[in-house]
């Protein structure tokens, strides 16, 4: 940046020299660039602020209010949180959603890693095509893919109908059980995880493994000490982008999971739909938001940018 300024206007004071930053006078060009930055990045930032952060703030406010016959009243109290914490049903829903999200995230991690690694290493010129083929189902939309899964697993789905035709009892475990919901969620979110890990492995320098081998490391040891930590940032992003929608998911459990997998998201959606208890729903939304925030912070803390091979390309 400084170099470019210097090249453009040879007389300009450099903005930084080495690691030492020299405070410069506010030049005309400086102000012009600040203005352009604001004009370009400002609208998008403002849009997110208005369309994402203000609504989230508003449900934080509503969570301290009261709903009566579909109307919100602004008398501040902690009742919604008390109900949410004391009613066993909400606790069960929350723990179930949490457990399911953890199971799905782990399953996605275990399946995605070998696949992303294999494509990045052996995919050759077809790498992009192979990854796009894995990501393609993601563009069909959740509802239609759940319909497709029901066509496969459901009571009148192909698997169970085949078994019935052959005179074998259908697999109960696939019909409206938490297991079916977990398989459904893995089906829905696996493409996210594979893409995240793939994007990380594709930029990984495989020659480092040769160095490890020359220095006597076995393949497994080289993986643990080099491949895994250097690609941890991509993996962590994958964990977050799978865990968060799974924790909030409602539709999958509703159509694949049956009564045994009623989730926190389902119950939350119900507060805003059928029962109209928006204040309680807001409190549940806040709880959901904070649990995903905790997950992001926990995973984010484990990232060491320098160890991940981050060279600060963004701050050129």
């Amino acid at each position: 940046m400084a170099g470019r300024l210097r090249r453009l206007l040879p007389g300009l004071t450099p903005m930084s020299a080495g690691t030492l930053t020299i405070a410069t006078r506010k030049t005309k060009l400086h102000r012009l660039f600040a203005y352009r930055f604001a004009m370009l990045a400002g609208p998008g930032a403002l849009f997110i602020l208005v369309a994402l952060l203000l609504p989230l703030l508003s449900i934080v406010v509503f969570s301290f209010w009261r709903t009566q016959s579909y109307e919100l009243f602004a008398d501040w109290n902690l009742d919604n949180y008390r109900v949410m914490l004391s009613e066993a049903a909400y606790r069960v829903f929350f723990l179930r959603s949490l457990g399911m999200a953890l199971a799905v995230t782990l399953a996605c991690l275990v399946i995605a890693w070998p696949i992303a690694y294999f494509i990045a290493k052996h995919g050759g010129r077809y790498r992009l095509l192979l990854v796009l083929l894995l990501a393609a189902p993601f563009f069909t939309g959740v509802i239609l893919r759940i319909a497709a899964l029901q066509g496969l697993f459901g009571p009148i789905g192909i698997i169970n109908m085949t078994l019935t035709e052959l005179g074998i009892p259908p697999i109960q475990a696939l019909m409206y059980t938490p297991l079916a919901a977990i398989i459904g969620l893995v089906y829905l979110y696996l493409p996210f995880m594979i893409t995240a890990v793939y994007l990380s492995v594709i930029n990984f320098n495989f020659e480092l493994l040769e160095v490890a081998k020359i220095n006597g490391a076995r393949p497994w040891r080289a993986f643990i000490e080099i491949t895994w930590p250097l690609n941890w940032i991509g993996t962590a992003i994958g964990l977050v982008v799978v865990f968060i929608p799974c924790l909030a998911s409602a539709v999958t459990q509703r159509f694949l999971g049956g009564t045994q997998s009623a989730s926190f998201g389902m119950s939350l959606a119900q507060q805003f739909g059928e029962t109209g208890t928006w204040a309680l729903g807001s409190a549940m939304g806040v709880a959901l938001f904070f649990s995903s925030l905790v997950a992001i912070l926990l995973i984010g803390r484990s990232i060491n940018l320098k160890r991940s091979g981050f060279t600060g390309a963004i701050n050129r």
Partner: protein
Amino acid sequence: MTATSTIAGPRRRLMASALVMGLVLAAVYVFLYAPIFYVIYTSFSADIVWPFPPRFSAQSYSDLFASSLYGTALANSVTLALGSAVISTVLAAAGAIGILRYRSRWRGLAMFLFLAPLFVAELLIGISTLAFNARVLGLPGNLFSAMAANAVPGTSFAFLIILAQLVRYDWNMDDAAMVFGAGPFRSFIEITLPTIWPSLLGAFLISFILAFNDLEISFYNLGAIPTLPSVAWGSLRFGLGPELFALATLVNGAVCLVFVVMYLLMRYRIVSFGYRGR
């Protein structure tokens, strides 16, 4: 003899592990595509419950096209997705250029804002926008607020895609154009745009497809306006309709078509989509 075996051993192990991983990859392809192919197959079949032996019919398609609800829903979905994708792409492109090109102390904050929606569940975006629009702004559900709400995660995805290409872009080219007297707008049109348009197109397509398929955000912000996902949701609730299978087939077909076009563009080297060859 011993020399060859020590060389052949690791190589054989390597080939074996490549074979195993290849099989895992194949299994995942089957897992991901079996339901979709089953749906496509069943949509052409006369009997949806047990479509064997196959008896083909286009009944589900004629049902689909006869229903006016699906037509309205398609039109709404397309309008919603187009509006949302335009907002996302424009905001994300401007944001990515601003953040990469002009140093500012607000850069970190802007980056954080652009990426924040990725870490908020869609259900939360949906309900919080509903609560905000209905109680703070006093707006009933409408197409425009659904467009804006869908553009929130769309902007993040578009931003990531455009950023990925822009980090490799050489801004010196623009500086050169400006030294020769082009204004910032002219240098963008003549220098930047011809280089980065594939990523803009990719960002537009992804945000379009996301908004087109979205249920959780649109459901809370559209009021009673039907879209394809919400109609599909309704029909899934009352048992699988054959026309739902036909709809899934058509949507899959459209997605496939986009990928075929992308492949052809790559094949004939019109666009490289980031592949530089290795």
